């Protein structure tokens, strides 16, 4: 790891006393490598996070010792796989503080969770003239499924505007809520701006009108403690691969009564009770929504990722990342010509920025040559880019294993890039 050069920079103090980031880093084998001959500085966590050894081991162990299909086997391996898969569901239930494990549906990712709600709850409950509200800082995953539904049903998508800092205009939201509103879809934490939205307030306001709320937790679930009962959200989705688990596994949480009343989406094995050519009856929750063989290894890996995060403590992670975030904001702000896109008061783990005279893609490439991985582009949030009048941004995003030294390396990398592009 590069040594610190800026001795005047603020130090992380309080959180680091209870959180040993250097020990955490030891758990992630990928972080030990060099890229282009430089130590890897991985700052693309909002895209996907790296995996701790325990998750990799759990997935390998499944395939090496008890790979089997679940819910139907009469043999020991199948029994073991079924138990591990269902144990993972229980871990997710507790992680989100859901009331019942039947409220946890395994899907591929947050995107699939939103599409599931749009295609089942949405198609049943939304009709011509109805309205769906989203915000101006949504990821495409929480825009397009609703647009598809609106097109099909003759409904309208309404958009909560945001301030220049990247905060929700709650006053405008209040005005948008009306008797035609059927659903609110809101991002908990913006992937393009880092804004953490006051979702509890958003939900309370919707509920006063009897409108259910879906929370897109793809970015929030791995940065802060989630309590779906305290939030009182009706649906909550997240992706396993951002929560230090594998790709291909995600979660849809839904309140039991809502999920139970929803028609199935995909048909196939495991989601049925009885099948005849005349009439098929469906399985109970959550299996009704889990057609076909699921990503068993992914679910087991996600369960272990949750164990791992619980071991570190979500509150500790949040506190550490909060201080790291403040440190990064300070050192990045000192880079001449750097403009931060998204300066909300409540913000976490994302630095989206432009650098004067430098195309974000060039920045990404020149940082990569220095071993620093960031994302550049539009972050699957074209409307956000349009809102700020930029064609793209560079985005550095934090995970539980990043350090102040890495943020210093980013700053040095930016200076170097600037000098080359000069």
């Amino acid at each position, binding site marked *: 790891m590069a040594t610190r050069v800026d001795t005047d920079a603020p130090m992380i103090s309080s959180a680091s006393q209870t959180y040993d980031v250097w020990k955490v880093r030891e758990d992630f084998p990928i972080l030990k490598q060099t890229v282009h001959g430089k130590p890897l500085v991985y700052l693309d966590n909002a895209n996907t996070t790296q995996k701790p050894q325990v998750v990799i081991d759990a997935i390998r162990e499944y395939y090496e010792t008890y790979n089997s299909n679940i819910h139907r086997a009469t043999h020991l391996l199948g029994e073991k796989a079924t138990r591990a898969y269902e144990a993972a569901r229980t871990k997710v239930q507790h992680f989100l503080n859901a009331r019942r494990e039947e409220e946890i549906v395994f899907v591929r990712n947050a995107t699939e969770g939103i599409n599931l709600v749009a295609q089942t709850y949405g198609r049943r409950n939304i009709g011509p003239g109805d309205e769906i509200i989203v915000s101006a800082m949504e990821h495409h995953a929480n825009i397009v499924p609703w647009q598809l539904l609106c097109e099909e049903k003759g409904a309208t998508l309404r958009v909560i505007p945001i301030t220049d800092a990247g905060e929700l205009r709650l006053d405008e939201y209040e005005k948008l809520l009306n008797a035609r509103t059927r659903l609110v879809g809101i991002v908990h934490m913006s992937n393009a701006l880092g804004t953490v939205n006051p979702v509890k307030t958003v939900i309370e306001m919707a509920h006063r009108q009897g409108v259910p709320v879906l929370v897109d937790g793809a970015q929030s679930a791995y940065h802060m403690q989630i309590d779906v009962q305290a939030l009182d959200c009706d649906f909550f989705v997240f992706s396993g691969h951002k929560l230090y688990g594998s790709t291909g596994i995600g979660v849809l949480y839904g309140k039991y009564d809502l999920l139970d009343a929803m028609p199935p989406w995909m048909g196939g094995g495991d989601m049925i009770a009885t099948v005849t050519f005349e009439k098929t009856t469906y399985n109970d929750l959550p299996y009704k929504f889990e057609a076909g063989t699921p990503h068993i290894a992914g679910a087991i890996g996600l369960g272990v990722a949750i164990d791992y995060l619980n071991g570190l403590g979500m509150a500790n992670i949040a506190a550490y990342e909060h201080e790291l975030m403040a440190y990064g904001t300070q050192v990045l702000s000192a880079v001449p010509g750097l403009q931060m896109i998204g300066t909300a008061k409540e913000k976490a783990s994302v630095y989206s920025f432009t650098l004067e005279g430098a*195309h974000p*893609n*060039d920045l990404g*490439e*020149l940082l990569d*040559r220095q071993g620093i991985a960031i994302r*550049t582009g539009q972050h699957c949030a074209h409307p956000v880019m349009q809102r700020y009048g930029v064609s*793209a941004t560079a985005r550095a995003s934090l995970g539980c294993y990043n350090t102040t030294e890495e943020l210093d390396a980013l700053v040095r990398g930016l200076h170097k890039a600037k000098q*080359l592009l000069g």
Partner: protein
Amino acid sequence: MAQSQDEQAEQLVEAFELFDDWDDKYSFLIDLGRKLPPMDEAAKTEENRIQGCQSKVWIVMEPHSEDGEAVLDFRADSDSAIVKGLIAILRKVYAGQPPEAVISYDIEGLLERLGLSRHLSLNRRNGLLGMVQRIKRDATQLSVA
């Protein structure tokens, strides 16, 4: 008549070989881009834009005749300094050449020799190949005309 493609290519390869460090190579590439002949702002239209590039790239073909022979030329620009450097490399081996030479030239081989094909991200590569395709398409039209 412009220098032959091989002469141009050799000069580029020699220049790139002078640098041991990645940053010197990039610095040289970016500098090549800076020396590109300017492109008229009015020509930066959607029509002239190459699709498939993450950064914006515009290209206008300017074929003309030299000693009674049709040769290809083009002006291009990008909002990315690195892409401008890549455009400069394309100009070195394509500009002022007869269409047949443009069509048959092994650009992948040159990028390989410059050590660029290994370093270019897949996205950049696709964008660069988009430019090459556009140039070759126009060269083909020119050779038929």
